[in-house]
């Protein structure tokens, strides 16, 4: 036993020796500051280059644009825009409110917007959100599909005076003003162009927070901007976003009181999260839908008469059971191709999918038989295995299909190592069976759930679905000036999807999160991002 005691002493001695050299630091944030979990953003934090939710979180705190989506209802509301007027849904005049500045003191003018949009659209700036500017006149010149750009600025943008600019679109697009709450449309100060690398080290915007310090890949400290002129100033003195590679660690940190807010509860903790956090657990709908997309370019899946097989498969999936057992009700069975966060006025319509989204094994077997059966009697569901614990639900989904079809090997999961490889296979049209697809809306419009995903050559049309009837209806809807009418026409287009089933709607995803006793008034917006500026520190 003497050996063991000695060893313990030695360890303690080494420990104190090391601890003595360590220079303090660490621990919780300073008074009034909320610490929250974060993932390392994939791209530099430029508005037109941020296309994923982690970078989007920061931009939501640092910037305010012409419009902002109401954190509760998702409705696009004017912020910097005083009014956006049009008579023909193609020519718009934007008038700004006065009194707005960037946190470095520079005034926000019409030029702040026009220059930022021109920067985002120009091909040589390699901004990943450039296609968001594609409806503005002159886009083809600054962003040709091949070769170098013929112009530096969009001809459709004209500055009239400090507070007015006009926008000409290359097509009618009635709901275009409602897209302007997206991060890509934020204004930028002159410092962004003059000292670009300096700006990236410490971004400057016009939102309720300003950057205090940014250690890339580790922590981003933001503090309340006292002179913020907007109607929604921060109700805490700052936010520290800490990068976590493993959401389990973030959750453990929350339990230990080392972190105030996590916005991604790991799947393995869902069973115990209610007993761990009680009312401090958030689970509310978000604008995310998960689908199973078919490779319509493959004759075996997209050929004539195959819609019966696709519809049959949809009926073979017991969505209720999977959302209950695997997801612990953090997802809701889907019955259309949009999301409940749109609301009935915005275009969400429960049950639009009809009988095809209702679990019915008998009818499923019948339909699949009529459609000529599964190609080769067997199908694989491809997914990426590196993130999001997709394996669990894909296996459950295949199980459900197998049980419904009464065959042990009708469906199996086919993992792909990385998300990058998965996306490459999709882009190269190398999918031989259905594959997982998730869509997080860019802005809460029914258009955003349909056009990018199912319009011929749409930017996220992974299954290469192409249907003349659908395209015509979408074009018609975009040209309608009356919002209610436009939504109804979009729903007509959605009915084409119900008949053709190019992708099976699986479930609407909820945003989830949890917070410590230190903070209150925590909620998620329709993009499943916490509304940081409303958080109060107790």
């Amino acid at each position: 036993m003497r050996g063991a005691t000695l060893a313990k002493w030695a360890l303690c001695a080494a420990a104190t020796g090391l601890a003595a050299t360590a220079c303090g630091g660490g621990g919780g944030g300073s008074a009034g500051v909320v610490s929250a979990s974060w993932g390392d953003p994939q791209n530099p934090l430029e508005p037109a280059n941020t296309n994923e939710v982690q970078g989007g979180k920061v931009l939501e705190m640092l910037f305010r644009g012409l419009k902002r989506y109401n954190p509760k209802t998702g409705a696009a509301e004017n912020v910097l825009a005083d009014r956006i007027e049009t008579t023909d849904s193609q020519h718009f005049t934007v008038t700004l409110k006065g009194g707005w500045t960037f946190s470095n003191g520079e005034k926000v003018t019409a030029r702040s917007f026009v220059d930022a949009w021109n920067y985002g659209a120009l091909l040589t700036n390699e901004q990943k959100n450039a296609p968001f500017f594609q409806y503005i006149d002159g886009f083809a010149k600054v962003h040709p599909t091949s070769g170098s750009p013929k112009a530096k600025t969009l001809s459709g943008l004209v500055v009239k005076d400090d507070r007015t600019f006009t926008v000409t679109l290359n097509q009618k697009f009635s709901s275009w003003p409602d897209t302007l709450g997206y991060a890509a449309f934020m204004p930028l100060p002159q410092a962004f162009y003059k000292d670009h690398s300096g700006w990236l080290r410490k971004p400057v915007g016009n939102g309720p927070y300003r950057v205090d310090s940014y250690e890339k890949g580790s922590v981003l400290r933001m503090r309340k901007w006292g002179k913020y002129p907007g109607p929604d100033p921060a109700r805490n003195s700052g936010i520290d976003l800490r990068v976590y590679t493993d959401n389990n660690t973030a959750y453990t940190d929350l339990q230990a009181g080392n972190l105030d807010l996590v916005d991604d509860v790991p799947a393995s903790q869902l069973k115990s999260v209610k007993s761990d956090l009680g009312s401090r657990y958030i689970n509310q709908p978000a604008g995310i839908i998960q689908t199973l997309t078919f490779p319509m370019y493959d004759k075996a899946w997209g050929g004539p008469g195959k819609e019966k097989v696709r519809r049959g498969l949809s009926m073979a999936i017991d969505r209720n059971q999977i959302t209950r057992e695997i997801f612990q009700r953090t997802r809701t069975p889907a019955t259309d191709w949009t999301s409940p966060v749109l609301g009935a006025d915005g275009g969400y319509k429960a049950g639009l999918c009809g009988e095809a989204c209702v679990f019915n094994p008998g009818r499923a077997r019948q339909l699949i038989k009529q459609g000529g059966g599964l190609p080769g009697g067997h199908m694989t569901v491809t997914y990426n295995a590196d993130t999001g614990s997709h394996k669990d639900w894909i296996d459950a989904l295949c199980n459900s299909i197998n049980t419904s079809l009464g065959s042990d090997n009708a469906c199996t999961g086919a993992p792909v190592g990385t998300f990058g490889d998965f996306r490459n296979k999709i882009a190269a049209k190398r999918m031989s069976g259905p594959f997982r697809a998730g869509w997080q809306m860019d802005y809460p419009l029914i258009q955003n759930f349909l056009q990018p995903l199912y319009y011929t050559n749409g930017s996220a049309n992974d299954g290469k679905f192409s249907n003349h009837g659908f395209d015509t209806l979408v074009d018609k809807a975009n040209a309608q000036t009356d919002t209610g009418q436009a939504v109804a026409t979009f729903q007509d287009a959605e009915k084409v999807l119900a008949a053709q089933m190019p992708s099976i709607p699986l479930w609407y995803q909820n945003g989830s999160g949890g917070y410590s006793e230190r903070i209150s008034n925590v909620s998620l917006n329709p993009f499943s991002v916490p509304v940081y500026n409303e958080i109060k520190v107790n």
Partner: protein
Amino acid sequence: MGRYVIRRLLQMIPVFIGSTFLIFFMVYALGDPVAAMFGERAPDPATAAQIRRELYLDAPLWKQYLHYMGQIFQGNFGTAFNGQSVIELMVSAFPVTLRLTVVAVVIEMVVGVVLGVFSGLRRGRGIDTSVLVLTLVVVSIPTFVSGYLLQFLFGVQWGWAAPSVSPEVPLNELLLPGLVLALVSLAYVTRLTRTSIAENVRADYVRTAVAKGLPRHRVITRHLLRNSLIPVVTFIGTDIGALMGGAIVTERIFNIHGVGYQLYQGILRQNSPTVVGFVTILVLVFLLANLLVDLLYAVLDPRIRYA
């Protein structure tokens, strides 16, 4: 001695070139990284082409490799996709991992050697058996199990330590992750020391030392231990390289943003400059650690000479 070192250093050149090429080739084989940058959306072809040209991805593999090596010799390790230079990433990551490794190595050396000496001196007795059982248990627990378990017990249940390491990476917060990282190697160090001590305790020079009337602690530390440490030093030398690169799991569990974290991100995003750059440095660390170990032999055992 000097010539020996130079010869060893020269031998590193082909190893260096070979390993960088292999890694480059493997990351390349993962496929085109550009599609993943665009998320669930199909990449805009014009922007994607522009990025590929910028990152030199449109050239054939051998050209990319030559271009990359040319950059390295100018001290430029390329740029990660989030716009940071790989050098910048290294400057932030290596010191962190180095600290973690030092903590782990100190723990495994101190605890491992002490336990090894005691069980070696009391071969077959109670303490020897209990240490044997203990090390067997420790060796058989994978790092992610011991990591999550200790993190939960110390961090949440008892509240003795923070479950994760804060961005400043103070050494006291590294004790727990260091212990987790050291656990498996600790068992090996213990076993190696024990066997070596048990063998040497009957050697002639120990008997001579005892016969000379030297005090027991002097016999053990100066004569027995010094001669028994050679296999242990070999192991620790190779272990430093393994710990630095193999801390991916531990760094992930305790949210330490070191080499393992950067490698993990790099692999996930198929970011070849990050992965190749970091692994290249790791290869160098490994080679240098091995050289150092060989030189240490001569210090520990005067019979070993290099020419």
